[in-house]
């Protein structure tokens, strides 16, 4: 068969695609369980972190999750995908998984707060597709840690952007103000609306639980 005949081109392309796709499918199948376990751990660890529950090893995280957390029904229209309830020292805390639009794709976070919605307990970014090195830095510790114990104002929280942003985190937990990522104002603004939507969702969840 001639190398430039249509039949050869079609058969060759088909076979080459089939062969490479076969090996990819094989690799995917071989690592499927591991990837699923990683995902489960990541998701549960994020909920624990958002609620400020300490854990050591990955196994301990899974155990803590089973022991301490309960899944909470999400009231209709609350805007959260999942909700969790945690009780400690006579206080109740809630966490919600919320997705909103970022600059390039959707951003999924887990946000925790006390049941009176006075303060946030923490924030974890579960999935994002922002520019690495710029918007992607919302996943860095300095950014996430600002949300620990932050006071929730009457209109939620506000994230500083543009020239106002220091890019190193806001140290005051009582002002309801957080520092955005320098060079990523749009992502920071998106985070502000996602977190505020999360706060509203938590309010509905906590209200529904009473």
């Amino acid at each position, binding site marked *: 068969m001639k*190398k*430039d005949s249509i039949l050869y081109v079609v058969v060759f392309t088909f076979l*080459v695609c089939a062969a*490479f796709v076969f090996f990819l499918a094989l690799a995917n199948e071989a*690592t499927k369980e591991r990837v699923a376990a*990683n*995902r489960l751990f990541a998701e549960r660890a994020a909920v624990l972190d958002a609620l400020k529950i300490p854990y050591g090893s990955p196994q301990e995280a899974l155990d803590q999750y089973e022991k301490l957390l309960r899944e909470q029904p999400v009231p209709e229209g609350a805007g959260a995908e999942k909700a969790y309830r945690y009780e400690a020292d006579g206080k109740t805390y809630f966490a919600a998984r919320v997705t909103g639009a970022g600059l390039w794709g959707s951003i999924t976070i887990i946000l925790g707060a006390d049941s009176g919605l006075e303060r946030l307990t923490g924030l974890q970014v579960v999935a994002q597709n922002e520019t*690495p*090195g710029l918007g992607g830095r919302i996943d860095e510790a300095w950014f996430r840690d600002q949300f620990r114990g932050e006071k929730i104002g009457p209109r939620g929280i506000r994230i500083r952007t543009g020239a106002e942003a220091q890019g190193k985190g806001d140290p005051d937990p009582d002002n309801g103000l957080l520092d955005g990522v320098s060079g990523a104002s749009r992502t920071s603004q998106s985070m502000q609306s996602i977190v505020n939507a999360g706060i509203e969702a938590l309010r509905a969840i906590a209200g529904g639980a009473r």
Partner: protein
Amino acid sequence: MSGKAGKILKDNLWTNNPIFIQILGICSTLAVTNSVRNTLIMTVGVSLATAFSSLTLSAMQAAIPRKVRMIVQVLVISFYVILIDIVLRAYLPDVSKQLGPYVGLIITNCIIMGRAEAFAAANKPFLSFWDGLTSGLGYMAVLVSIAVVREVLGFGSLLGFRVMPQGFEPWTIMIMAPSAFFLVAFVMWWAKTVQAKAAVKAAAAKAGPKPAPAKA
């Protein structure tokens, strides 16, 4: 090392470096170089993807019809990149999460397709593998140097460990993409100057000893 392999190494690291001579793969240079760790993982990924796709394409070259040459190149490159992505997701989930879409974007790194088209299409498989690997190393050398400067000045740390004194005020510009533009330009300037000086020297040596300056 045989003469040809040595020449390829020197070409890809210096005389024909993908970043400062061919100006390829600049997009990822701007994006990932604000942290040394991400840069290392990204450049290792690019080196492996370039090496293995060059090897595979060179081994297959006799069977590939010209009409679908580029389609097959993209297929093979995506195959290796997706494989890297699967391995990262299964064994290094943290890194995979941090690099996010950038692993998938290795596919569009011009260096890989450039080497497949310019070298692997006309050379033996093992030499092509070596060419791909050294091109990746040339890319890595420049990116890691830029990343060291950016991380130290932008965060005051190196590979996550603090290296600058406590009072050091981080240079925010170093974290942002524009600083990579300046630094890449500096690297190009430096490399071209050194190369041009070496060329002048070599030409002078060839022409023989300098004539004595004429008296006024």
